[in-house]
């Protein structure tokens, strides 16, 4: 039965390491040149801006940094951001898996249109992404009068923030999984089904392990973006301090109050959240890889004996 994609790549590379290393690798100089170029790109576009954010965050010292993060409004913003992400991410994961399964395992008319519709939320300007919910749920929108009559609030309240977050992170999981599952084709699933596994079993035992890493990437990206979204949420939030402010909006508020150090401190917290999830992912991946290597080595030793 199929293992994870990573394992597939790793295991044979180890068993046949001696023979194939030179044939499928690049020369040392090229390797270093490519690595250097990639790192330079990352340094210019990511590291330097990040350094700037942290430098500004600590420009007034630790006290101001900590004070910015422990202030009640900041706490409330952190809570609201986590709530919005905790609702949006699982919903988009379920959708993403369903959509990727349907799209990659079957042939049907209009597939490209469906894929493009899934991509669309990325192309929608955050200004518009907020506006569309105002047009539907606002006082003068389609459902506005009905909502008002029943004393329900969608926009300028938490549900609107969640909706906007779902919208902007909508494509992540699906788009991460579709190319991966298309690449993998259907043969493994077909084999499992022929051997008598049920549809659900096939999904859990065959498909899920092989898309694990792609799914994880999707979740991490979706989560990062859910926490970082500014534009769309800003339109539907109403900016009520201590009530409907998310972390990115709180950053804007602080910046507009000329509390630059505090603004960057809160921003650095968001950056840290992203880095922490990524390090957790890397650690998981590393452990997984080491287990594989160990079993591969054990297998080789057995052969040698």
């Amino acid at each position, binding site marked *: 039965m199929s293992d994870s994609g990573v394992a597939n790549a790793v295991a044979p590379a180890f068993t046949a390491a001696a023979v194939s290393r030179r044939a499928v690798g690049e020369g040392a100089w090229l390797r270093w040149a490519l690595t250097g170029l990639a790192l330079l790109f990352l340094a210019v576009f990511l590291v330097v801006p990040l350094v700037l954010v942290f430098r500004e965050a600590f420009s007034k010292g630790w006290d101001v940094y900590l004070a910015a993060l422990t202030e009640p409004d900041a706490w409330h913003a952190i809570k609201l951001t986590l709530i919005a992400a905790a609702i949006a991410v699982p919903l988009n994961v379920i959708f993403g898996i369903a959509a990727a399964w349907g799209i990659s395992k079957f042939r049907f008319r209009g597939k490209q249109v469906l894929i493009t519709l899934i991509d669309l939320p990325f192309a929608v300007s955050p200004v518009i992404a907020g506006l569309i919910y105002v047009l539907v749920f606002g*006082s003068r929108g389609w459902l*506005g009068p009905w909502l008002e009559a029943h004393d329900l*609030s969608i926009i300028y309240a938490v549900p609107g923030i969640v909706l906007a977050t779902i919208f902007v992170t909508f494509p992540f999981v699906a788009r991460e999984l579709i190319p991966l599952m298309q690449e993998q084709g259907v043969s493994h699933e077909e084999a499992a089904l022929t051997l008598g596994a049920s549809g659900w079993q096939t999904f859990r035992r065959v498909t899920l392990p092989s898309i694990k890493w792609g799914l994880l990437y999707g979740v991490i990206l979706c989560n990062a973006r859910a926490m970082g979204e500014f534009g769309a949420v800003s339109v539907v939030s*109403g*900016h009520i*301090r*201590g009530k409907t402010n998310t972390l990115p909006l709180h950053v804007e508020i602080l910046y*507009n109050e*000329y509390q630059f150090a505090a603004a960057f401190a809160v921003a650095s917290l968001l950056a840290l959240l992203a880095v922490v999830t990524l390090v957790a992912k890397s650690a998981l991946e590393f452990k997984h890889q080491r287990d594989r290597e160990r079993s591969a080595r054990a297998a080789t030793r057995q052969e040698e004996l």
Partner: protein
Amino acid sequence: MNWKTLIAATALGLVVSTPALAAREILNVSYDPTRELYEQFNKEFVKHWKAETGEPLTVRQSHGGAGKQTRAVIDGLEADVVTLALAYDIDAISEKTGKLPKDWQKRLPHNSAPYTSTIVFLVRKGNPKGLHDWDDLIKPGVEVITPNPKTSGGARWNYLAAWAFAQDKYGSEEKAKDYITKLFKQVPVLDSGARGSTTTFVQRGIGDVLLAWENEALLAINELGKGDFEIVVPSVSILAEPPVTLVDKNAQKHGTTDVAKAYLEYLYTPVGQEIAAKNYYRPTDPKIAKKYADAFPDVNLITVDDVFGGWQKAQKTHFNDGGVFDQIYKPSE
């Protein structure tokens, strides 16, 4: 927290016949430059209200660009009171939602503006380019920083002040238009909001002069760079009257009409006026104004009503699509 006080306060709150059991809260939807002002004022008012009625009160605050905040109230943000930059914005709320009467501006003194402000120049220390009045701004090589009048309320005041000067000095609308066109040719960056422009000027070091609200300029000098900047008061500027009002239907719905009204009226009391003055707004109370006279230089002030026939008209002629501002910029070849 002392439980006895809390219980007593709640009991008292019930006796004072508040319809809601929980602590009431009111929401003040305002624009960007009033953040510091209302942070202080809300604290004072909550204290005052507690002392007066024994009722604990929460004042919620929402800030943002004036236009965006107005739209939010129109689209359903349930503000009990609005404290915005222009009467024009509040007119829009009244007109589009019917949540407050058309003649709202007559309900409070001074056209419902408890404090006023004006537009001044913020220049770099020593005024190296020698900028003293509006006509200096179009001298070759002078970089002017102002936000975009299409997206920023403050920028509209800048524009109208400049226009009023030019129309008076050069004698015709045609010439005023020439002046405005030249002025905006000197603008290298049009930020989307007033605070963005301040940052561009102060933090990025771009431009020779920033056109700004007087309160913003004073705040920038005191908070961002003492000694790095100077304020220049032009020969003529514009009287800005940021109005405040109750949003009747929202307050009725929340059962907060009494406290929301008291909140606005408190802005006119000596306490409210002092807070406004300390936050660099010109108080309307003559006594307080006298006390802080040193902080606010004399300026020859014109009003939008006198020169432009009101905000509705000014907005339409100058800032709506196809208006004078749009004609300044030509497609580049």
